[in-house]
């Protein structure tokens, strides 16, 4: 039916089903379908192949722009990565994976346990630091996270650490006092060290639905999010919310998490991600 320059309702419904169940969201899916219909009608497509191909191309043009890998500049001494996100998304585990990766590339790494709130959060990160064999800074349970960050920065500088990664407590983006707390950590870092934090990484869970958009946008309003890590893509969830987030917030997707082990961290590749949406 594409030869007739129009798309059948069955094709649309099938496509909608695939994209909606991949968590792209009703609004984004509607816009994508409208774009394709418009392009087909305008005969912009020389050889309209399957509608799926057209959608994949459209998705690629959106997601390709977010294929911007994290560039560590060790001359910052240290390059500071602040890790944030809502509860349970995989921040602590992602920090461990990232620390291991950077260390394997010859950089010296320090992890800072600035989640001083949740039960055994410090112990959890400490175990990871021991497994990796990297530097580690902690305070006592209940300490001010900004104080931990400040302290870690001082210690990293003294020890000539290349990369400092700071773990923070999970927090809902709708909780004002918690968002004020993270803004304070951000302020302390930027005040104490030029350019810090050099990367502010928002960790999003791929099983999250449309709420991820609210998370990304409120975290971005509060502190300058410069990268996203999308975790748990080894599950059945597709993480389609990242399409809407890319379009509206234009934040690079630095990494994807594909498991619970130290080496389960990959760079984001738009083409692979898009192919997986249709599997």
């Amino acid at each position: 039916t594409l030869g007739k320059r129009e798309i059948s309702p069955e094709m649309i419904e099938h496509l909608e089903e695939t994209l909606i169940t991949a968590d792209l969201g009703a609004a984004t899916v509607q816009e994508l379908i409208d774009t394709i219909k418009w392009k087909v009608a305008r005969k912009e497509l020389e050889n309209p192949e399957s509608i799926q191909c057209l959608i994949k191309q459209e998705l690629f043009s959106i997601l390709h722009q977010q294929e911007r890998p994290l560039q560590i500049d060790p001359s910052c001494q240290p390059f500071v990565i602040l890790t944030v996100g809502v509860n349970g998304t995989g921040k602590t585990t992602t920090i461990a994976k990232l620390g291991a990766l950077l260390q394997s590339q010859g950089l010296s790494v320090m992890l800072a346990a600035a989640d001083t709130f949740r039960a055994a959060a410090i112990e959890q990160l400490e175990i990871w630091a021991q497994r990796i064999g990297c530097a580690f800074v902690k305070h006592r349970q209940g300490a001010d996270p900004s104080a931990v960050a400040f302290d870690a920065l001082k210690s990293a500088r003294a020890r000539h650490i290349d990369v400092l990664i700071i773990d923070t407590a999970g927090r809902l983006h709708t909780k004002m006092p918690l968002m004020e707390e993270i803004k304070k950590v951000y302020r302390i870092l930027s005040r104490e060290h030029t350019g810090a934090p050099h990367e502010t990484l928002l960790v999003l869970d791929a099983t999250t639905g449309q709420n991820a958009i609210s998370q990304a946008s409120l975290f971005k309003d509060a502190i300058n999010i410069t990268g996203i890590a999308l975790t748990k893509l080894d599950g059945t969830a597709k993480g389609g919310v990242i399409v809407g987030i890319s379009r509206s917030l234009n934040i690079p997707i630095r990494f994807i998490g594909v498991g619970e082990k130290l080496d389960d961290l990959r760079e984001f590749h738009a083409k692979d991600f898009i192919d997986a949406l249709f599997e």
Partner: protein
Amino acid sequence: VITSGFNKVRDRLQGKVELTESNIEDALRDIRFSLLEADVHLSVVKRFIAHVQEKAVGEVVATRVAHKGKKLKVSPADHFINICYEELVNLMGPVDVSLRFGSRPVAAIMLVGLQGCGKTTTAGKLASYLRSKNKKPLLVAADIYRPAAIEQLQVIGSSLGIPVYTQQNALPPLICKQALEHARSIGCDVAIFDTAGRLAIDDALMHELENIVAMTQPENTLLVCDAMIGQDAVKTAETFSRRLPVSGFILTKLDGDARGGAALSIKEVTGKPIKFLGTGEALDRLEEFRPEGLASRILG
């Protein structure tokens, strides 16, 4: 965002003297959009819309016959929204927040779910809740994988003054079995198994849960779900409840702004009730499920 769905329907039906098939259709399109944005599964949305349409159109016809064209007392918008709301409440009910205690000296509650959904925290909350109901709970650390998971449960138990059973050099099925014996020996009457987060498609880890069930025959198996979960809720809930005797659900992190559409999807697809809602990180933030609050949150 939360109220846009309802408002849109209200605007659309504003000034309409009566519900007709055609304006119902438009309103349903808005509702469909709102439910999808609320993370209700597409298949569940389709069934819901068809059901509401049938009901609303049926009422239009009945109303015409009954009133012979006279004006209705309730505005069409309110009437239609009410049909949707009632349908949603019906789908999420009937309310059953009961836990089975059976006839054994120690009853068991096994908590399962995906990684990071809030099982360990919920275990603590459940223990606190059960104690308020005059039960004597024992927390069981059956997650032997996650770094400091056992410690996390111990800190929670100690903050509540509730005992925590741990065991070195044993796998979760044996840990849980021996926990029941330990519970009996210290006068506890209910054991809560905190298991490791796992993917529904991880066959080995799902098999581990099946082994825990085989060893301990828990009276209750509760699937813990993060309220912000998207379309994956259905696949996950289906797989867990197919392989395990899931008796109910706990939806966590409802103190955020996630609409919580998963609540509707998992209930619809498995038929099992939502028992509790987690509404904060603190250990007293557990409520018995009531459909009304969640229904208006999902509809938006």
